[in-house]
């Protein structure tokens, strides 16, 4: 029984293909401005990796901001169940999922078999979302993935006080102008983001194991300071943290197949 999950996010689109509860392939592409096209490309990528054709896929569930009009999906499911199912698949002991996407940050409290018990969404303002890091990386002319490791070099992280993503950028620029150390700036940003995320996780209740998903989960700096804020260890999945939602969607698709 082969199923697929397609997660169309505001920045990247991911497809995961599973067979009888095991991942056989996945693929990630930039979403760009044609979600349906991105979905198709991601699917084709995943299929070719698994030497399959679309007809082999029994059922596909789509999810994510742009997931509502994916032509080849049997149905759309919101990110919450997909993320919790996916995290549960990788780490059955999960009780709390923290997902930091492009614009939205979600803290999910997970129950039996990866069911969603309750959840919290970030306050209305882009600051604190993953987008913050794009802006930052751009301002510092660095690769997104370097932010985490670099921040670990910092001895004295700086305070980033601005509450607007764009202003935060100008704050970063003026800090640079003041000759401040880049790693301290990055560490400062990681901390301020982590502290925003921490409020959200605390709101939903910090129950271990806490699993972090989404692109920002690659940022060791954020994870470390989030662990600091929450006083618990944070696990990441033994795979690209971006595909968790897609994997969850695919597992839900398998469920659909069983039930049909």
């Amino acid at each position: 029984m082969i199923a697929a999950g397609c997660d169309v996010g505001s920045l990247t689109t991911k497809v995961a293909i599973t067979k009888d509860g095991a991942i056989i392939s996945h693929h990630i592409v930039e979403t760009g401005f044609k979600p349906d096209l991105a979905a198709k490309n991601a699917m084709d990528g995943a299929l070719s990796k698994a030497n399959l054709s679309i007809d082999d896929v029994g059922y596909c569930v789509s999810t994510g901001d742009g997931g509502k009009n994916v032509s080849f999906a049997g149905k759309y499911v919101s990110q919450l169940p997909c993320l919790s199912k996916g995290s549960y698949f990788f780490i059955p002991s999960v009780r709390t999922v923290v997902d930091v996407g492009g614009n939205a940050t979600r803290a999910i409290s997970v129950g039996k078999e990866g069911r969603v018990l309750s959840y919290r969404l970030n306050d209305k303002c882009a600051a604190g979302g993953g987008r913050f890091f794009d802006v930052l990386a751009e301002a510092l002319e660095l690769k997104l993935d370097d932010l985490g490791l670099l921040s670990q070099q910092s001895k004295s992280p700086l305070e980033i006080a601005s509450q607007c993503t764009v202003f935060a950028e100008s704050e970063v620029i003026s800090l640079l102008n003041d000759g401040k150390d880049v790693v301290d700036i990055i560490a400062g940003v990681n901390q301020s983001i982590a502290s925003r995320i921490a409020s959200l996780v605390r709101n939903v209740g910090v129950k271990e194991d806490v699993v972090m998903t989404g692109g920002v989960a690659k940022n060791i700096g954020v994870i470390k300071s989030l662990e600091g804020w929450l006083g618990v260890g944070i696990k990441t999945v033994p795979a690209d943290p971006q595909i968790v939602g897609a994997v969850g969607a695919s597992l839900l698709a398998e469920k659909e197949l069983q039930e049909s």
Partner: protein
Amino acid sequence: MIVAGCDVGSLTAEAVIMSDGEILSSEIIGVRPKPEQSAKDVMDKALQKAHLALEDIDYCVSTGYGRERIPFARDNISEISCHGKGAHWLIPSVRTVIDVGGQDCKVIRVDANGKLQNFIMNDKCAAGTGRFLEVMAKTLEIRLDEIGPLSLLARNPVVITNMCSIYAQTEVAASIAQGADQHDLAAGITRAMAERVNSLVVRVGVEEDVVITGGVAKNTGVVKSLEVMLRVSTKKFNVDPQIVGALGGALFAKEKFLRK
């Protein structure tokens, strides 16, 4: 007597050199990592053009957010006063100056002598600043200066509701996904931009004549929709609207030089 003004903003730096009430030369460059560097580079270019050396300058006033860090400036004056001063010198009938910079938007009221009377500046978030247009241009994958012309060909402009630049970007991306026409998007963006600027303008009130300075003054689309909203037609400069701040600096430099 030779005086100079040097305006170091968040995106560009400008220098203007004057003698006996005449502009000898002016220059615009994109900012360097450090304001000192930007100032030096742009001033050197301006001096070159005027066949002068830094020693020939009797007095230099710096402005812009880097104003406090310009070694060769004898004095610094806020860009708010400078834009008022410069605009009034170019067009004496000016009473209201709208300056839309990289991350700031200022509305400046001056009296018949070009003296600053009142002003307002965006303080909370970056909606209504050049940054907004930048983000949008990137989203549309076009050059900043293309937005204006494109917008003029729109049939039914897309409505952009969200105030936050970052969220507005997602909104625009969504309508691109729904296959919205590029002209209509551009028009939607310029209108949204104008609305944001307008919400500042109304707070200090408009008195004619009105001018727009800064890079956005070159954006025909924004200017047009702003004119509609304010129910006035704005006056145009016979020089690049981006040098107005530096020009104001030079004019202040002259006054200060004469005073001592």
